[in-house]
């Protein structure tokens, strides 16, 4: 089972690669919409990427209001 810190690190690496931003520019507690500069369609892409990577299902309504990487990692960790 993955640790919460490893999950968080993988999310940051995956998001940086997919949206082509430097990994070092992303920090766990920042707003990922702003950090990645993504719109609603790209948010869906991120959700799909994360589900495929971690092999989990993430119902959209569980992610409503989630804006930072750390909380996102906790939501994923709860389904691993």
């Amino acid at each position, binding site marked *: 089972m993955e640790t919460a810190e490893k999950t968080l690190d993988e999310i940051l690496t995956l998001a940086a690669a997919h949206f082509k931003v430097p990994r070092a520019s992303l920090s766990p507690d920042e707003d990922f919409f702003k950090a990645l500069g993504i719109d*609603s369609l790209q*948010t869906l892409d991120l959700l799909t990427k994360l589900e*495929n990577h971690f092999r989990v299902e993430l119902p*959209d*309504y569980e992610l*409503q209001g989630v804006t930072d990487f750390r909380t996102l990692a906790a939501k994923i960790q709860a389904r691993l």
Partner: protein
Amino acid sequence: MLAKGNALGVREFKGQALSWQVEGGVIELALHRDPCNELGSLSLGELERFASALDELEKEAHALIVYSELKSGFCAGADLRELYEQSHAMEKLQAAQGVRDFLERIHRVLNRIDAAPLTTIAAVHGVTFGGGFELALVCDLMIADKMARFCFPELRLGLIPGFGGIPRLKRDLGNAVVRDLLLTGRSFNATKAQQIGLASQVVGEGEALRAARATAAQMGKFDRETAVAAKRFIKPIPAEELRKEIDIFCDLFSRPAVQAGLKKFVESTDAQPYLP
């Protein structure tokens, strides 16, 4: 009304919302209306043109592939902005009749494609929501890019899917799965779509059209008459439920909550506006 387009004849058409061509016995219907192939009056006009052309196209084709040329996805569903603006500008009764007319027209087109004596394949990627999901459900097979995402978000507007979604989902899936997809309005990925029996193949990013072409080529090896007989036997049009769906949709549409829901969606700057 037919949309303006650069008509090249029945075998080939280049419109503003979609294009088609036939080659090697395969019709390819490409969607290409920004931002994500929203289905409004322009798309419907061109889809009607396609449905009319099918009588001729079917004589030289054994398969149809429906796909999107846009990076954003297959289709984001009904053009809610147009629906809101048109219904907002009309009297209540006039708006209700306009919605019913639109639904009747799109049902005729989708039923025509559904029952076509061709093997039909939806090659989907990215956003495949609402009416876009319903368009894919019309096809015999769905081949999904692993980044495809599906959703029936209509309940957020106080509506049900109106382009045949529920009857066609019920035709293909168990009722418990249908309830989950409809009543939660959650979106789900291609892997899930394959697990529940909606997607016949899941392929890598950008590979759905290639896989659909390979599948269509395989189908060309079979006796056409047999393939048509098999399709008619196993894929009946749920006509009665489709009629009922239009009636329920129109009843729901006449409520003030729907206008409020449409307004909220159209004006939303939320990152997930498809959620209630």
